């Protein structure tokens, strides 16, 4: 899809309706006001309460160290002051009429519509998947339920060794629970990190007493006779006792509204490099958007705070008269036990991994493809992670040979290549 020619009204719309009040939807509203948008902003979210941060839900919140008002992205006063209105459920988008219909029958007209519908957890397709005590984690409501369940659980089984599963496994362990993680791949975080980092994460969990059953599928979930989960049946027939099962097997984009409205959907709501859908009055941002990765050219969908915020900021800039192409570098973090894993860049398949280690709990893995740096994973080296973000984000080249030099650091390389002290943000 090429850049679309926009008319004046499309460039500076008056009424903006945002569907979805997660991190991305909230940020569209906040950034629109920051950029001087004077018109109406309706932020329609399905969840009760104010927009909140999701990352703590699998960490501090579970351990009871963050109360709910501390999760709010902004207090109520913000929405009043900035005239950001609305709750409800959007049930349909009528593009010819430029209006959305809500579940209670209300119709809201828009000049620009932003779809920030997010994603929802995938569930298991096995017998017993709907038993009580089998949960997923995405919303505050999910986290509340898990916090309650955890209080009475002794044996916790986590299905899926992705970020959510492992963060939950770490938190449950720290609360004194016995935790087993079951993963079909032969290593944790198989789709997102390299072999060396996966090996470190495995060790991290095992050393603290979590059991990781890798390369192992789940055949079903067994009942206690009263509709509550009692055990997880593995593909090899073994039974794991469980009074709480967290299913963390990835998330699927919420694309139904877009699809029903006739917008293109392919592994997410398809957008161009300005995050516009095929309709110049409709943008898609955050987890639900499938957009062209500026570095590889591939269509990607990214679930992260960074992606949500940077998408939202770009759309707000465009809607207030400053269009640009999306160029922001993806970055991620995951807190497990006392360790923070940081990732800069999107690794869509590397052919070389180089480990720079300064101590067992302090290392970076540099991932190269065709002799060019594509991503960096770090543990305990925040300075190197930030340098990686600058290098990759700024397109500063780095070859494996340069990185192989004794005493090499990303920070020093960045400094040398940018010809001075570490620069301020672009």
């Amino acid at each position, binding site marked *: 899809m090429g850049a679309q020619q926009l008319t004046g009204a499309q460039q500076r719309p008056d009424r903006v309706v945002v569907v979805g009040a997660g991190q991305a939807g909230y940020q569209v509203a906040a950034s629109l006001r*920051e950029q001087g948008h004077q018109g109406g902003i309706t932020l329609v979210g399905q969840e009760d309460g104010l927009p909140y*941060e999701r*990352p*703590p839900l699998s960490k501090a919140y579970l351990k009871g160290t963050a109360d709910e*008002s*501390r999760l*709010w*992205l*902004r*207090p109520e*006063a*913000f929405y009043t*002051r900035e005239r950001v209105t609305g709750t409800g459920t959007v049930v349909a988008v009528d593009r010819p009429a430029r209006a959305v219909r809500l579940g209670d029958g209300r119709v809201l007209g828009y000049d620009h519509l932003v779809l920030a519908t997010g994603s929802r957890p995938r569930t298991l397709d096995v017998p017993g998947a709907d038993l009580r005590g089998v949960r997923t984690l995405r919303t505050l409501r999910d986290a509340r339920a898990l916090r309650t369940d955890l209080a009475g659980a002794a044996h916790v089984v986590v299905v899926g060794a992705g970020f959510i599963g492992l963060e939950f496994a770490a938190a449950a362990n720290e609360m004194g629970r016995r935790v087993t993680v079951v993963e079909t791949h032969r290593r944790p975080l198989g789709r997102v990190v390299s072999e060396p980092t996966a090996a470190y994460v495995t060790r991290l969990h095992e050393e603290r007493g979590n059991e990781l059953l890798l390369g192992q599928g789940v055949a079903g979930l067994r009942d206690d006779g009263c509709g509550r989960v009692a055990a997880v049946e593995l593909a090899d027939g073994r039974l794991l006792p469980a009074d709480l099962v967290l299913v963390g097997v990835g998330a699927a984009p919420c694309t139904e509204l877009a699809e029903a409205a006739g917008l293109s959907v392919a592994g997410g709501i398809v957008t161009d490099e300005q995050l516009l859908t095929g309709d110049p009055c409709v943008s898609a941002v955050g987890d639900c958007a499938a957009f062209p990765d500026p570095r590889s050219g591939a269509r990607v969908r990214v679930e992260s*705070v*960074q992606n949500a*915020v940077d998408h939202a*900021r770009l759309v707000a800039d465009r809607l207030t008269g400053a269009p640009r192409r999306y160029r922001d570098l993806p*970055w991620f*973090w995951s*807190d497990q036990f006392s360790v*923070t894993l*940081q990732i800069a860049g999107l690794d869509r398949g590397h052919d070389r991994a180089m480990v720079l280690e300064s101590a067992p709990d302090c290392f970076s893995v540099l991932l190269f493809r065709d002799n060019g740096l594509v991503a960096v994973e770090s543990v305990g080296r*925040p*300075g190197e992670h*930030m340098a990686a*973000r*600058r290098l990759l984000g700024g397109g500063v080249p780095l070859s494996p040979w340069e990185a192989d030099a004794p005493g090499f650091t990303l920070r020093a390389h960045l400094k040398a290549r940018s010809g001075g002290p*570490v620069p*301020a*943000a672009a």
Partner: protein
Amino acid sequence: MPQITYVAADSTERTLDVSAGLSVMRGAVMNDVDGIAAQCGGSAQCATCHVYVDPKAVAALEEMDEEEDDMLGYTACERRPNSRLSCRLQVTDALDGLVVHLPERQY
């Protein structure tokens, strides 16, 4: 409750009661203070809660750790000797009266 004063880049001031135990960042977010983005929510991942601490108060603060020091190399506005990440400043009774200046931008 300790009072913290947030001074925006345009010199408008807000003085707020912030419970001990919260961070200076959280105090701003919970009280709807503009100018602190705190994209990562206090995980020291983003350097978008950068503040300039009133120079007189710098010595009274807990010293920064290496992580914060590293992150401060990547703020949107220039780092100065009194630069801190407000997510790393825990409010205590001893910090009552603290004044922090917000940079012009966080991105």
